[in-house]
């Protein structure tokens, strides 16, 4: 025992922290949960319960922060105002510009709701980002899609909307033969898909990595140099990934919101 390599042997009691003594590489099954309860056709599993916890947290925080707003803000109100200023000035006014104020509620909701849902990926006891369930980003991206497309048609007219998308001005005429279909496909068909996959894939990959290294830290744990070292390294990687995820979560929420603003802006004023 001790410094021997006995841990590496399958028969040893050490190094056998999982059934069958093999490394149970986490697969996609970690993204599926059994329903805890159902309401009619709606099954509520862990992810869906977290979804509504997230909704309550976002509403609760801002309601709490502004329950008694003061002229001189403190604590939660300060944080809330910074968040509001970030969305209104940093996204709505900067990206959409004139008329951007109207979309502050939409952008505000997207940013903070997605951030909280992402953040659950590293929140102790939950440790699962709701946005890594594909249905959720799809639902959000569809809401965005159904906002900017009708908006664009209303603002630019049915033909004008598609014309502005397909025929960006200032290019040699023959180029439009290639460009028009590409623009149409990329903007109308691919855009909502990339919009949701970007968010989903980031959170999915992040969660998979954290789970893999967490499992590895436990799998490698044994009273040998290799075991302790491997376990420690894996654990350090988990910590580093958690810190990294903290950044990615905020960034992806921001990117999703920013793209929403960009799409709305494009619908409001034909930018091409």
């Amino acid at each position, binding site marked *: 025992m001790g410094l021997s390599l006995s841990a590496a042997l399958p028969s040893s009691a050490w190094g056998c922290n999982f059934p069958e003594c093999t490394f149970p590489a986490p697969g996609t099954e970690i993204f599926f949960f059994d329903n805890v309860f159902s309401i009619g056709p709606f099954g509520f599993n862990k992810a869906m319960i977290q979804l509504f916890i997230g*909704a309550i947290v976002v509403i609760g925080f801002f309601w709490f922060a502004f329950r008694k707003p003061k002229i001189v803000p403190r604590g939660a109100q300060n944080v809330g105002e910074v968040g*509001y200023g970030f969305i209104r000035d940093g996204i709505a006014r900067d990206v959409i510009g004139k008329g951007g104020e109207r979309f502050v509620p939409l952008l505000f909701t997207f940013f903070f709701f997605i951030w909280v849902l992402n953040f659950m990926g590293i929140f102790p006891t939950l440790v699962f980002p709701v946005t890594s369930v594909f*249905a959720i980003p*799809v639902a959000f991206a569809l809401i965005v899609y159904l906002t900017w497309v009708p908006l664009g048609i209303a603002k630019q007219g049915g033909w004008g909307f598609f014309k502005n998308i397909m025929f960006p001005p200032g290019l040699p005429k023959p180029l439009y033969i290639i460009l028009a279909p590409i623009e149409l496909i990329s903007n109308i068909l691919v855009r909502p898909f990339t919009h949701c996959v970007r968010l989903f894939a980031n959170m999915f990959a992040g969660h998979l990595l954290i789970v893999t290294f967490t499992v590895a830290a436990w799998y490698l744990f044994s009273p040998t140099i290799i075991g302790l070292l491997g376990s420690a390294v894996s654990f350090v990687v988990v910590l580093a990934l958690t810190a990294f995820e903290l950044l990615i979560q905020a960034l992806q929420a921001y990117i999703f919101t920013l793209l929403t603003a960009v799409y709305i802006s494009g619908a409001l004023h034909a930018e091409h």
Partner: protein
Amino acid sequence: MITVGTALAAAGGEGESPSVLAVPLDEFILGIVAFFIVFFALWKLVLPKIEQTLKDRTDAIEGGIERAAKAEAEAKAMMAQYKEQIANAHEEAANIRAKAEADAKVIVDQAKQQAEAERSAIAQRGEAQLAAERTQTVAALRQDVGGLAVDLAGRIVGETLSDDARARGVVDRFIADLEASSAGDNS
């Protein structure tokens, strides 16, 4: 359940567990419902409060600036008023001083005039008195001198010039001659 992404995930099928790119309809609908709950709560309850708060703050700040500007204007007006008052006071003081000087001059002049008048009156009175005394003395002297002269002449001549009238005429003539000769000497 509708599985939108099933086809896309077919290549990477994971054995028993369903595709991660599947989109179960119930989860999709719950996602939309959750979004709209948050959206309406924030839109209707929270954001108006935030906007109101920011607006109130802007008003408070602008009100403060306005009040400060007003106070400054008031202070300036008051300053101008004080300056004017001080200028007025200075002017008034100067006027009073000038008047006092003028008054003093008048008083001094008056006093001088009065003194001059008194001096001349005293001088006149003195002269008059002197003249009167002189006249009186001259008259008395003339009388005495006349008497003495007659007396003396009577004694010398030995004859009493008792006839007053005649004697007086002689004496007078004598004195007049004397005066005429002295006047002639003086000229």
